């Protein structure tokens, strides 16, 4: 329940981040004469600055919320893309089997064996280092797209393998045989019989996978290979404020860490709950 409240609140804040006045100052530096006296650098939490300030005097709370938007968008976009691609490939492999299955399985194994960090470094560092990407309808920062791409590619294989295994077991069910016996073609069987029964498992995996992706994004950001200034993500903030721990102003690290921790935990809890719900329904049938 707490997990849902946390995620709900966070999503709400993330969606409206661009319009909330207290979030909009995420990138404001103290300006003007006397500013240096008014605002503490690496400040402690106060009534003005709930989460304190970072080394440049920016509001950590505002940055945390704004970062939530970026982080969640990256995570969600990657997991959705991976679910669509991996789910499709996994379903096809699990349903049709044969050489098709063998080729795809080898592909998944290769993907799984590929060193993730190296892939990230190559894709983000080499191909999407800077500049804007024109996608026709809208432009997107290249790095942003690069990070999503990397995380998607990395999540396809594990998702596809789970979906494939599930599909194989569902394809053996009597009602699938019954549907075939009534004249349903492969497409109809896949879409009407197998996919709906696959969804609970997919949702469960998606939530757990999202949690993993958030951490992965944090790792990338920590290495300096995620989204760049001026957009913060939690990993980026942690990396940015890392030297502060030694210099006595750990707040700017503590809060994004906590946010990341709670969010990952919530997604995991949610994923588990969906999985349990799914199992119970299976058992009562």
């Amino acid at each position, binding site marked *: 329940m707490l997990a849902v409240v946390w995620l709900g609140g966070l999503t709400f804040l993330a969606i409206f981040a661009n319009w909330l006045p207290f979030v909009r100052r995420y990138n404001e530096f103290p300006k003007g004469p006397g500013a240096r006296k008014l605002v503490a650098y690496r400040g402690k939490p106060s009534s003005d600055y709930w989460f304190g300030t970072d080394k440049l005097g920016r509001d950590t709370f505002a940055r945390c919320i704004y970062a939530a938007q970026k982080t969640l968008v990256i995570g969600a976009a990657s997991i959705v893309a991976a679910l669509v691609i991996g789910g499709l490939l996994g379903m096809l492999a699990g349903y049709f089997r044969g050489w098709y299955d063998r080729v795809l399985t080898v592909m998944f194994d290769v993907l799984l064996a590929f060193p993730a960090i190296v892939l990230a470094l190559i894709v983000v560092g080499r191909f999407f280092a800077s500049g804007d990407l024109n996608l026709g309808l809208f432009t997107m920062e290249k790095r942003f797209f690069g990070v999503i791409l990397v995380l998607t590619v990395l999540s396809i294989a594990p998702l596809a393998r789970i979906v494939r295994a599930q599909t194989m077991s569902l394809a053996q069910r009597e009602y699938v045989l019954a549907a075939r*016996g009534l004249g349903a073609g492969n497409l109809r069987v896949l879409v009407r*019989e197998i996919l*709906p029964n696959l969804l609970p498992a997919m949702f469960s995996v998606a939530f757990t996978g999202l949690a993993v992706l958030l951490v992965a994004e944090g790792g990338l950001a920590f290495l300096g290979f995620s989204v760049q200034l001026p957009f913060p993500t939690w990993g980026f903030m942690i990396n940015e404020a890392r030297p502060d721990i030694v210099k006595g102003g750990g707040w700017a690290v503590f809060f994004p860490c906590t946010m990341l921790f709670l969010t990952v935990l919530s997604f995991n809890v949610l994923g588990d709950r969906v999985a349990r719900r799914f199992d119970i329904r299976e058992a*009562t049938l």
Partner: protein
Amino acid sequence: MSEMDTRPDEGTLLDVRNLKTHFATARGVVRAVDGVSFTLERGAALGIVGESGSGKTVLARSIMGLLPPRGVHREGEVFFAGTDLRRLDAKQMRRYWGKQMSMIFQDPMTSLNPLMTIGNQIAEPLRVHLGSDKAEARAVALRLLTDVGIPEPEKRLDQYPHELSGGMRQRAMIAIALACGPTLLFADEPTTALDVTVQAQILELIATQRRDRNMSVILVTHDLGVVAGHTDSIIVMYAGQIVESAPTRSLFRSMRHPYTEALMRSIPQLDQPSHTRLLAIGGRPPDLINPPEGCRFAPRCPYAEERCLQEAPTHQSDTPGHSFACWNPVGSPTWAARQHSTTGSAAT
């Protein structure tokens, strides 16, 4: 399509000739169905009887063509209304599935999609085969549910399988199978998962629908009692082969194969004194990878002799329509001689 729509009321609907269905497994080739031949008239009901593993379910699925895509070897001929189904590919078969022939499965708990409403599941085949629109399919589904005797059919249309009882689910299954008005209905152990009282209702329902629709029915079961009242003829299967086939009356009047006799004896009889020991068939069904030489039932047969173990018996017949594969059929002199020597030991 037109040649399929003309439906003479009489004549042979199904003609199965020397059908074999073998599965490739890691241990070897399983001969699940090993040379089965029979014919079925339009509007007639045929029972296929045998214990677990005798190949009756595989036979039904093999005729229908509903087998796993890989690792199956099927040979022989299956003529359905004059067409050899074995020559059709999956795409062509799909026009038969549901429309010409359909199947009721054993377990109504697992053979309905848990995430689709009953109404939608009945509507599926209608929309596949007849291209009905939503409203039309719903109306037909409602009529079908009423036909199969489900109370409050209107309400059931929008319910999910878990909201229905076992008997109602089986009725729903029957409604789905009947949706497109098939000429041939396979009922694979339709009552095994149900209570005895519900069993009788379901069998009666299938019989009524058969008469109303002039549909042929193949009833697969391990229960001689189930086929007794609801079939015109019976095939007894053992180890993938037919050991006896006869019109139902003829079979129950004089069963000739020792296996049929043994099956009959393992059913409790009302006229027996209570606490009479049931005669179970000793031993197990044979390994279908290495079936015994000679008669496949010989190792378990109380009347078996040297010849049975070496030479497979051929089908013979003494009354028209009644054939059996046995060297010493029930009623023969050898059988009579053997019976005295064996019943004493079997009773202990």
